[in-house]
C-alpha cells in the first residue's frame, strides 16, 4: 500500500530518505493533514527495514512539525505542514519555469542539477562565513 521506496545502498541515511519521501508525499498532496502514516511495525515489515530506523524518521518528522505522534495511535500528518505544502506547490511552479528556461538555453539535465547544487553550496558557504564573522 505504501508508496515509499528506499535505496539502502545509496549511502544516504535511510531515516533521511524516509523523511524526504514523507515530506514529498505531503507536498504533492498524496498525504494530507490528518492522514495516518503506517505503523512502525507495518512499515518496517513492508519495506524490510529496521524498525529503529523508522522510529528515528518518525521522531525527526515530529520534531520538524510534519507529523504528530499520538501515543498508542500512531503518526498523523500535522495541520501546519499543509500550509508549507501550499508554499511548496507555488515554489514548484517557479522551479519548473526556471528549468524550462535552462532547457531552452540548451543546458542538460545533469548541468541543471549541478547549477542548482552550486547555488545552494555557495549560499551555504556564505551563511557559514557570515556566522564566523
Amino acid at each position, binding site marked *: 500500500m505504501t508508496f515509499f521506496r528506499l535505496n539502502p545502498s545509496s549511502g544516504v541515511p535511510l531515516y533521511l530518505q524516509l523523511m524526504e519521501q514523507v515530506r514529498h508525499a505531503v507536498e504533492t498532496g498524496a498525504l494530507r493533514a490528518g492522514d495516518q502514516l503506517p505503523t512502525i511495525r507495518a512499515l518496517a515489515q513492508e519495506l*524490510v527495514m529496521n524498525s529503529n*530506523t523508522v522510529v528515528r524518521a518518525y521522531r525527526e518528522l515530529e520534531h520538524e512539525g510534519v507529523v504528530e505522534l499520538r501515543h498508542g495511535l500512531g503518526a498523523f500528518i500535522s495541520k501546519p505542514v499543509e500550509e508549507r505544502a501550499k508554499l511548496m506547490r507555488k515554489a514548484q511552479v517557479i522551479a519548473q519555469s526556471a528549468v524550462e528556461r535552462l532547457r531552452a538555453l540548451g543546458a542538460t539535465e545533469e548541468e541543471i542539477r549541478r547549477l542548482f547544487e552550486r547555488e545552494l553550496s555557495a549560499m551555504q558557504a556564505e551563511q557559514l562565513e557570515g556566522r564566523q564573522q
Partner: protein
Amino acid sequence: MSDVVIETSGLRKLFDGHPAVDGLDLTVPPGSIFGFLGRNGAGKTTTIRLLLGFLRSGGGQVRVFGEPVVGPAGGARTRRRIGFVSENKDLYPYMTVRQIIRFTRPFFPGWRADLERRYLEIFNLPPDRKISALSKGMRTSLMLLLAISHRAELLVLDEPTEGLDPAVTEIVLRELVALSASEGTTIFFSSHQLAEVEQIADRVAIIERGRAVVGGVLDDLRARYQRLRIVFQREPAPVSWPEGAESVRQDGRTVSILASRNVEAIVQRARSLSGASVERFPVGLKEIFLEHVRSK
C-alpha cells in the same frame, strides 16, 4: 532488562600464538539488528564462538545479558536465551526435520508451537526428510526455525543467508525485521552480503585482524562518510587536509577524497583555496568496507 545485550571489551583469543581476536570492543544494545562484517579470517566466527561460550577467551571480557557466558555464574542459563545458527549449519544428520524439532522442543519451556508451524510452512520444509538429505539452504532455514521457535531474546546468526536463493533470503530478512519489530528480539549476524546488511541492520561493526575498525549506528556512518570531488582552476600545490580525509587522490586539477569524518571542515578547507568547486557524493557501506579492510 539490562541496557546492553552483548558487551565485549579488550576481548582476545590466541590460536597457536596467533591472535584471532585481538582486543575487540563491541556493544550491542537491546532490540538492535547488528551486522558483523569482516573478511574471511578476520575473526568473526571465533568472536561468535566466544560470545556463546564455546571457546574460552584469552583475555578481556565478554558478557551477554550482563552475565559471563562461561563458568557457574552464567553459562547454561544465559545460553538458553540465545538462538544460534552456526556457520556450517550442522545438525544431527540422521534425524528427520520432525525429529529434530521434537528433540529440541523440551529444552525450552517457552517453545512457540505457532512459530514452529508458521516457519515450517514459510520455509517449505519437508517434515519427514532426513537432515542429511536437506540442501544447505534448507538446513539454514531449519536452524532458523529452531532458533526462532524457542523464543530466543537474542539471535546469533553466523552467515544466515549464505547459500540461500534470493527468494528465501528475502523471506528470512523479512522475518528477522518482523521479529525485531514485534518481539524486540536482538539480532547479531555476520554476513558477506553488504546489501542485506545495509537493508536491515541499524548498527554495524567491521572487524579486521581481530579488532573493530569501524562501528556504530549505520545511518550515522552513512552521514559521516562522503566522497568529495574538488576541481581547482589550476593544478594545486600539495594541500594539508584536516583529519578524516582518507585516500586523497589527485588527477591533474581534480582531487578526490573519501572523508570519514570532519566533512564540513574538509569542504571549507577546499573552498578556502581559490577557485575550487566542491561536489559531495554519498558513500555506501561497500565503499566504507573496502576502505577499511584493503590489504595494507
